């Protein structure tokens, strides 16, 4: 057999595999693991949404749609963003339906980055931004965020990292992995820097609806920001539809148009079944979504209190479904802590450094699990921390 790796591009060969992947391989081969390691809701997609998909299949909706997505869906997305954020987008030219936010981000990188353009990425960050930037020829520039700032991006940090090559700023709030959010004032603090340096903001708001004790603020709603922000959102988290792979991007028509051009050559269109389900979600799914968000909020408080009691304190995360406690009391690195916890107590959490070096010293715990599950996990983690306390 030939050595396939001889044919691979150098840039692909040097791309490191996701730190999460390695940990997944470790955890998935173990029996009886209690996991706090997922990045998706514990709810199955609400029945009425699944049912709408069955019905569309019965009716024979199995064909391609418009490249940018069904116009009915784009119209519903426009109405939804208006209801929720008071933002107005033209469904014909300013909205693109994608295969999850992941595709939208990849498209944006590829249509916007020239070789060597810099992408400013707050860290800890979701795992695909850095490789996505590199594959599009850009240069990732990591912005440190700190626990004492509740992992918000500060003006000083941004100002210190901007160069003449800076082109994009990637914001993910509510944040995966920290659960941190940026409020209106936090975002306002950055606006003049963004405008003065002519940056385009890619705002991954996939966890936007999962904001607790207040309402999510999209940076696009701030003065002068709509024209230079590409909002990315989707159905995975808010509507418990991860496997359907439906996301969307909204923003400047030239950029969305270019993304659509690339999208039509690579994906053609997002699957119609998922689009039909998404349409139902926006038309009739908000009550159910609010019920799920309320449920996450209950469990958020429960796990936060529990972690504090066992000696793994965390700032109060106000978004997503993650808590990001410090593990400094054990004196271990994130990876060491996670591996030992898995081996000794069969609890899976995700080491913070999988999300970049600012995540070192922390672990990501997801609370999209039942109350019993969370309490069992906390009990075992408590025993572990007591044993390894330094």
């Amino acid at each position: 057999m030939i050595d396939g790796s001889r044919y691979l591009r150098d840039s692909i060969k040097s791309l490191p595999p996701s730190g999460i992947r390695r940990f997944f391989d470790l955890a998935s081969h173990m029996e009886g693991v209690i996991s706090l390691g997922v990045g998706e809701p514990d709810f199955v997609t609400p029945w009425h949404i699944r049912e709408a998909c069955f019905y569309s299949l019965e009716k024979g909706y199995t064909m391609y749609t418009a490249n940018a997505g069904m116009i009915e869906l784009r119209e519903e997305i426009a109405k939804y963003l208006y209801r929720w954020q008071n933002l107005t987008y033209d469904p014909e030219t300013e909205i693109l339906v994608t295969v999850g936010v992941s595709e939208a981000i990849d498209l944006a990188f590829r249509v916007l980055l020239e070789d060597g353009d810099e992408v400013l990425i707050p860290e800890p960050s979701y795992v695909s931004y850095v490789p996505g930037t590199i594959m599009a020829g850009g240069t990732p520039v990591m912005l440190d965020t700190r626990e004492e700032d509740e992992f918000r991006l500060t003006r000083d940090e941004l100002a210190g990292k901007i160069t003449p090559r800076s082109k994009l700023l990637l914001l993910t709030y509510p944040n995966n992995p920290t659960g941190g959010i940026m409020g209106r004032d936090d975002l306002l603090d950055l606006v003049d820097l963004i405008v003065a340096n002519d940056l385009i903001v890619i705002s991954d708001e996939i966890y936007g609806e999962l904001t607790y004790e207040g309402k999510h603020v999209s940076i696009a709603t701030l003065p002068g920001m709509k024209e230079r922000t590409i909002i990315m959102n989707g159905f995975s988290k808010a509507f418990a539809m991860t496997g359907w792979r439906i996301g969307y991007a909204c923003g400047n028509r030239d950029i969305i148009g270019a993304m659509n051009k690339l999208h039509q050559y690579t994906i053609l269109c997002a699957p119609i079944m998922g689009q039909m389900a998404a349409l139902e979600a926006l038309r009739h799914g908000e009550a159910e979504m609010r019920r799920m968000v309320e449920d996450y909020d209950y469990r958020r408080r429960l796990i936060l209190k529990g972690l504090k009691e066992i000696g793994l304190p965390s700032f109060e995360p106000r978004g997503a479904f993650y808590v990001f406690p410090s593990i400094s009391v054990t004196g271990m690195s994130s990876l060491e802590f996670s591996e030992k916890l898995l081996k000794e107590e069969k609890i899976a959490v995700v080491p913070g450094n999988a999300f970049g070096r600012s995540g070192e010293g922390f672990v990501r715990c997801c609370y999209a699990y039942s109350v019993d599950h969370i309490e069992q996990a906390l009990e075992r983690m408590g025993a572990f921390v007591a044993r390894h306390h330094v």
Partner: protein
Amino acid sequence: MSLDRRILELLERDARHTPQQIAAMLGEDENRVIAEIARLEKEKIILGHTSIINWEKAGDDGVTAMVEVKVTPEREVGFDAIANRICRFPEVRTVYLMSGLYDLAVVVHGKDLKDISTFISQKLATMHQVQSTTTHFVLKRYKQDGFIFDDKEKDRRLVVSP
């Protein structure tokens, strides 16, 4: 939403939630939650704490019937007096006053068909306000109080994902 309402919703979903858990989930003081539950119980807003059981799976071969009952309402008390009398029988699990073609929907549980027919013919149908009864036996239960009996859905997520 008010505190008592949120407590009720949590307990309705899972009666095993302890006051400590509820307090943590709602971000409230534990003593306040304990006091609130005590009040709700005292005022009979919380009537009891029970479990939803698949008796068929537990090996019980009892029989359940839905009985449509037409009754003559009485002056001053309307349907309440007769409904309350029917409620007192331990065989009767549920009693609703209904709109439509009959008045009371009565769910009766017994150990077998004979048990139920004896109850209806000797106790229920003989009450002087009862005009008629129509009995429907339950053949299979699929869902009760929000719980699906043979639910195939389970956590199918990967152990770790980004």
